[in-house]
């Protein structure tokens, strides 16, 4: 394994010309990567002269783990999910980041107070907050009888039609519990018990035959557009794109939103350590995070950025109400709990797959 990793990373590495001033960033590709190029990379290069090479991965944590295990780290900054940031940090794969060294808010508030809760970890700094939300096709339900809550998602009698859900326990079990009346704040306490897990699966059982399972982020939007489902959970950035950029008749239910963060981490032995740190600090400052919202509907991880969020790149749409961090969106939102999932992911995934496979 090691040898292939060395080989493949060496091959990837060859793409970068060796120059003194550059930084290699691995991110998720697509519109999200584009927003980072526009909001972070271009001004960063303009200001520092350091070139930024973007590398796309399905999940940047996978090449990160591979490079560290192979002892041949070729990229400097990785954009990963919180649970991976914590896991990789605990495994000693990442450098620790001094929170005091991060730039303060424009009004002087230190970074530690400016970032939203959970956005600063020993080895990671969050850049965006994104939500998994329920969305539905407004043309499929009569006016005045449109679904409004997570409970409506499970009510196929009142709101007939198929449902789209991702095929993993993390983004399905919480929704079942919310719909079953568990307050967002108590989700993990309930899910930590056997009875709670039973309860979540029992609720999922009620719509099991109506679910179309999706795998990749683009699928739920397509399912909705094809009329294959009437309601689905979907990443808020994707559905925003469909509604605003493509004028689709979809609406978003913020009730029962599942909030996640994406984080920047730097592996130990990153080849351009100084440039990497410089990039990380620059990209997570107030202005940069606010700028990113111009290109994609993900919320900035700094409180001070919220006020600077303006219009979408079309110049008309006000971004603030589409942010997963807006007051309405936060009302009954479940925050991702990486510690919980680090402990229970394997067990619950196995149970989830067994549940799926049983008829």
């Amino acid at each position, binding site marked *: *394994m*090691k*040898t*292939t990793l060395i*080989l493949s990373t060496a091959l990837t590495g060859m793409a970068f010309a060796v120059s003194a001033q550059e930084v290699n960033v691995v991110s998720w590709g697509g519109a999200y990567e584009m927003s980072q190029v526009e909001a972070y990379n271009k001004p960063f290069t303009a200001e520092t002269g350091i070139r930024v090479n973007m590398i796309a991965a*399905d*999940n940047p*944590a*996978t090449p990160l*783990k591979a490079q560290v295990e192979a002892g041949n780290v070729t990229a400097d900054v990785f954009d990963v999910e919180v649970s*991976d940031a*914590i*896991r*990789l*940090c*605990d*495994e*000693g794969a990442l450098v620790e980041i001094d929170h005091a060294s991060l730039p303060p808010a424009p009004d002087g508030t230190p970074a530690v107070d400016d970032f939203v809760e959970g956005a600063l970890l020993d080895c990671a700094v969050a850049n965006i907050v994104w939500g998994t939300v329920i969305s539905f096709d407004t043309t499929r339900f009569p006016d005045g009888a449109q679904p409004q809550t997570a409970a409506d998602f499970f009510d196929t009698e009142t709101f007939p039609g*198929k449902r789209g859900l991702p*095929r*993993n326990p993390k983004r399905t079990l919480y929704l079942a519990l919310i719909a079953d009346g568990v307050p967002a704040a108590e989700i993990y306490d309930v899910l930590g018990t056997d009875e709670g897990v039973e309860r979540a699966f029992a609720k999922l059982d009620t719509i099991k035959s109506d*679910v*179309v*399972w999706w*795998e*990749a982020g683009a*699928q739920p939007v*397509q399912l909705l557009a*094809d*009329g*294959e489902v009437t309601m689905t959970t979907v990443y808020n950035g994707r559905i925003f794109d469909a509604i605003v950029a493509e004028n689709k008749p979809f609406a978003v239910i913020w009730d029962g939103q599942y909030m996640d963060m994406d984080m920047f981490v730097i592996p130990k032995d990153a080849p351009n350590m100084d440039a990497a740190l410089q990039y990380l600090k620059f990209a997570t400052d107030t202005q940069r995070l606010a700028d990113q919202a111009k290109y994609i509907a993900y919320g900035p991880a700094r409180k001070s950025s919220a006020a600077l969020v303006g219009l979408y790149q079309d110049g008309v749409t006000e971004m603030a109400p589409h942010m997963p961090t807006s007051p309405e969106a936060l009302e009954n939102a479940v925050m991702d709990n990486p*510690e*919980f999932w*680090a*402990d*229970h*992911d*394997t*067990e619950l*995934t*196995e*149970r989830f*797959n*067994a*549940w*799926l*496979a049983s*008829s």
Partner: protein
Amino acid sequence: MANVALDPHAAIATTASGVGAALTTADGKPLARALARSQRRARRRAFLLVLPLLAFILVTFVIPIGQMLQRSFYNDGFSRNMPQVSAWFAATERGTDPDEAAWAALAADLTAAAEARTIGMVGTRINYDLSGARSLFTSTGRALRGGLEPPYREALLGINEGWDNPMLWSAMREASRPYTANFYLAALDRTRDEDGRIRQVDERQQVYVMLFMRTFWLSLLITGLTFLLGFPIAHLLATLPMRKSNLLMILVLLPFWTSLLVRTTSWMVLLQQQGVVNDILVWLGVIGHDQRLQMIYNQTGTIIAMTHILLPFMVLPLYSVMRTINPSYVRAARSLGATSWTAFRRVYFPQTLPGLGAGALLVFILAVGYYITPALVGGSSGQLISNMIAMHMTSTLNWSMAAALAALLLASVLVLYWLYDRLVGIDNLKLG
């Protein structure tokens, strides 16, 4: 040995030396040795020619797969980072209650691991066997930074009562040796109880054995379907005039030249409930608007899409074999009194077996390892074991588990290959 196998002349040389051992050359040297010497140069050159490929295969295939497989039974995440408590486990019998020495060793190891930032790795390793153990290690690690005072048992229990769990100690004992069969046990829905006995996991968590069965059953079904669909096509291709068969061949190969994702997506467009096929059926009045068929996001979708994608792998070997079957065989059979069905069954069909065997083997082995298509169109009932391997590789990052599942899959494919060799004979295989 390697070059003997690589050089056909070498084999002849060996036989020759056996037969003509007593013979000598004109100047009295043993003939066998003279022959070997005269061929050594050629053999060496032949070996040097294949050396790059050999090295390539070794570096890119054998070594990585070997290392991957090693992960399935070797994981030193615990033993390397927890040396003292591992030594205690090695010195005591299974079932021994932890004494103060064990607690002291544990505390020392935990402190060291917390400082070295390896405690997450330790926790991850134990968490594979005991769900929830990871946070016990990481949270204890954070609390430990100040150091610990004896008595260590009470000190650790003060941080977290979970340290007294006998299941935890059993799991740590298992992990104290880097070699473990636990990943294989887990891949077969088995686990160890606190006494180390193997038992089935909770019924609600049993998934792999069922998925293995489903993978093999579906692969078999898909192989059968590609045969049923591919055989007539291959026969048509082999008997049509060249110009027409070339055109038809393009149609058969078209899926090859289209991206897998495009093909899979087009099946979605066709088969979904609001899709083309259902629309046509509704329009024709075969089914009502509210009776639209569920043909995708379930097993049916996986079967249809994979049959289509794998069809060329059946058609091509069959075609290349059929092309070589002289039509006079069937004519001979007919002239000897066989009906066209008997002629097909007893004369034509048996001669297509090498192609059929190759095609079936190809399709089956590819189907067993397929994961993109079932992931996209399989819904819940069309998932295969490879989807679990992919999940453990990319999402839970439990590579040992992925390796164990992959090793089992590889082993069962090899068993099938061996069976095929015994029943049909691998030298009968004709890949094109």
